[in-house]
């Protein structure tokens, strides 16, 4: 059974009454442990697709199955619960809560999930050690570089043991070296812990590392390469 399956996914936004077809029938399957990159020109629907998979938004038509469960019909609260339990997000920037330290940011989602204080402390520390960011524990986001912030965001995504981690252009705001470090880290997580990753990116160095590449054009899958 695939971890993720979309069936004829369509999303139509309305831009001041004018319909914008962001997705026009996307059917993909992503297996557990895949390291997938969604590429494509700007406006092709990459973010929209990630948002559907990530239960942030509901499709206009079609279905999304996560671990076999149809998530297209869930309400706002149920979607929130699902995101909390099964999905880790890394956005392009400003992922972290500014008033919390790195450690507290990582603990935050576990707190939402009801993990007891002692355990979440241990798990957050363990994740930071593994990702070599333990020295950032006490720093607030504004005391960290963009790359460090993204690493903390990955740690936060990983620590709740999600089914899948979605990263929307995680390297877009980083220089290529920092971006490469971040990718190294995510690759390691993928290889050693079999965590499923899906990226969206224009960044050639991200695309190079993809073990599966989906290319979107005008809201449709134009290419699916392994």
């Amino acid at each position, binding site marked *: 059974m695939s971890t993720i399956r979309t069936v004829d996914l369509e999303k139509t936004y309305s831009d001041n009454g004018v319909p914008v077809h962001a997705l026009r029938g996307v059917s993909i399957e992503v297996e557990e442990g895949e390291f997938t990159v969604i590429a494509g020109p700007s406006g092709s629907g990459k973010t929209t697709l990630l*948002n559907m998979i*990530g239960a*942030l*938004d509901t499709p206009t038509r079609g279905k999304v199955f996560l671990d076999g469960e149809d998530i297209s019909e869930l309400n*706002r*609260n149920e979607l*929130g*619960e699902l*995101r*909390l*339990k099964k*999905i880790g*997000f890394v*956005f392009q920037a*400003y*992922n*972290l*809560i*500014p*008033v*919390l330290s790195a450690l*507290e940011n990582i*603990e*935050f*989602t576990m*707190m*939402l*999930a009801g993990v007891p*204080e002692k355990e979440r402390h241990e798990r957050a520390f363990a994740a930071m050690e593994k990702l070599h960011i333990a020295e950032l524990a006490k720093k607030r986001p504004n005391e960290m570089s963009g790359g460090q912030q993204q690493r903390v965001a990955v740690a*936060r995504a990983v620590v709740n043991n999600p089914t899948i981690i979605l990263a929307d252009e995680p390297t877009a705001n980083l220089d290529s070296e920092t971006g490469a470090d971040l990718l190294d880290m995510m690759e390691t997580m993928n290889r050693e812990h079999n965590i499923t990753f899906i990226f969206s990116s224009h960044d050639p160095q991200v695309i190079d590392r993809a073990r599966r590449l989906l290319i979107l054009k005008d809201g449709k899958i134009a290419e699916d390469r392994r």
Partner: protein
Amino acid sequence: MLLKLAWRNIWRNSRRSILVLISAIVGLIAILLYESLSMGMIHQMLGNQIGSHVTHIQIHKNGFNDNKIIQNNIADAQEITAALDSENRIKHYSERVLSYGILSSASSASGILLAGVVPDQEAQVTIIKQSLEEGRYLSGEKHEIVIGQKLAEKLEVGLGDKVVAMASSLDGDIGSDVFRVVGIYRTFSSDFDRVHGFVALENLQEMLDFGTRISEVAILLENANASQSVASILKETLGDRYEVLPYQELLPLLVMQVDVSRQAMFVFYAIIGIAMIFGIINTMLMSVLERIQEFGVLMAVGMKNRRLFNMVLLEALLLGITGTIIGLILGYLCYLPLATNGMDLRNFSDGLGALGIGAIIYPELTPQSVVNAALIVPIFSVLGAIYPAIRAVRLNPISAIRHV
């Protein structure tokens, strides 16, 4: 953790939060001082009235309070005093004969209320003896009178001077007698001092052909709060030939003023509460709108609406509680010196004298008013945060994340 988060969020824009805090603090200090002063003032007025003449409970022949004529008198005082002696919450009582009349000196005359009292008894229930400015109190001898300072001034008499009192006696004739001024007193109320003269009980009974009748028994209790319950017990024992009136019924205007002032406090609370609501709406709304992107991330990582809503309310609540703590402490610090030294209103004391208050007001802070003041700001803060919190949870996570 949510608490920590909310607390830190408050201080992200510290200037804005401090402004809200200051408005809460100033409001609270104003509430505490206003409430304690007005309560202190009314209680002082009440205390002065009770202490100078009214006492806690009065017993008369039925109808006397509405129509203070000497025909409404108590023929058998013993029946009453026997009942009083068996009630142990009563500290002291004083038997009085009261009559309106005219007091004249060589130069002037004035209408007064003549009170015939047993000096030992009366000195136990009122402060007239302690309020003497000149001379001495009644000894019980005939032809002695103690009058108020304002009356002495009006009649242009001093210690040792003679005055003549006239009043209609029980059988309708004019009774009169000559008195020598032995003492001049001054209470907090110039009105009181202008009309009250005290003579020996038997002296007045004789002058009015009263026999052994009296007009009233004035009762001082151990504890003023028992006035109504003791009065109702006495009423039962004495039957309906007599009226037994606690001070609440004797001073209805003052007692009403306590209520009015309580209601005025609620208006005050409402004003401060509404000001607080708008301050909080403004502050929290700005703070929510500044954090749209962040709320988007919070929602994306799975923070539920209810939690987000609570977080915004919690921020307002913490702000309110902080303001309350500081406001109460500062308010109390302002109140303490006033409560011990009193607030000196000597500049206005002519007007206050007419009202029956002293020149110095001692504010009174009751636990009830502290509790009220402590609740007001946090409650209205939370109310004010509801709309901003609704705005926060109405955000769509996707557009919120894209928001810059």
